[in-house]
């Protein structure tokens, strides 16, 4: 599980950048970032300068998965429903 995924996402808000605290790979970096990848909805991630061989698409997919809200529990089926004794 990726730690603090929201720290890795920047936003263009009213045309001004709110830079993320970490690169997509979770490293510190100096401002301004030289390599920025846009992931939709005015959001962006910072890629490492002189990056190691790195799969950006996979990194973004992992980030999106980490940012996604937890899935709602599946409705329970096949069980008999009893009235509450207090009803």
């Amino acid at each position, binding site marked *: 599980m990726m730690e603090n995924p929201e720290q890795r996402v920047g936003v263009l808000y009213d045309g001004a950048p709110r830079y993320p605290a970490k690169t997509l790979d979770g490293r510190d970096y100096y401002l301004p970032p030289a390599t920025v990848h846009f992931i939709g909805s005015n959001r962006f991630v910072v890629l490492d300068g002189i990056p*190691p*061989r790195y799969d950006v698409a996979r990194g973004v997919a992992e980030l999106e998965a980490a940012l996604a809200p937890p899935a709602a529990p599946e409705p329970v089926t096949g069980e008999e429903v009893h009235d509450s004794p207090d009803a």
Partner: protein
Amino acid sequence: MASDLLQGIYVLQIARLSSAGYPMGQLLTPDAPVAGTVYSPYVVPAPVEYQPATPTWVEFESYARGKPRGRATPGISSLGTGTLVLAEDDDTFEALIKGKAVDTTTATAARIASGNFASNAPRRFLVGLTPIALAYDSVITYKTIWKWGYFSWNETGMNSGEGRNPNNRSYTFHPTLSPRTPFGQLFSAATVDPDNDTDSEYKMRDSAPFALTTYVDDNSGLTGGILLPYTPDYTEHAGAHNILYKNGSDAKASISGISGKTVTGTPGTSGDIWVLLTPSTEILSLAA
């Protein structure tokens, strides 16, 4: 007046070149960019001096009856080599010219770099050096001078020197000819029209250093805006200061706005290569 005194190196930008001749920022695989990404050069923190290359000019002449007669040159036989001097040992710069990443994985709090002296693949760069350009009226402007080429390097030395810059690092620069301007236009179509449609030096003067940015289009990002590393001094996009090219052609008509660090416009096709040159005072203070 267009005569000015060049002093200092206030900005040094270095970007990898793709095989097609476009600057691709710090991307170690410049022929394999990721769409929807802004790639910007490395801004070297401690440049001190560039000693220019001296081309070798071929000459032939006639001498007979004790007197010189005809003399001519067909041009140069070599571009020569220059020397770039940095005040500090810069592992990011070295990683870039050597094509190897700085390892911050083996020990996450350390920085580990290879000398890569067995390299067999010289990597080509677009290098932009910006001195002050001082005119007769003492108004300060900046001249950004672009060069294309590759570097060779030496072992790391050390000494017991004191005072200012006691242990400079020197790198040999091997200029090469480029078929494209810094913003990707083919020289064959360029107004400057150099002979043989190639060149190894290109000078641009404006009120601030030209900051270089490359954006690889993803067919959507420009709608909401893309992010430049340095704020342009001018918000115009009509061709006065900012140079906005896509795939080597003037594309300023596709740009609808420049605000702060954000450029908006009409997206192109995924994979289109935008190269933007924007005068920016901010690059002077943030090149740290």
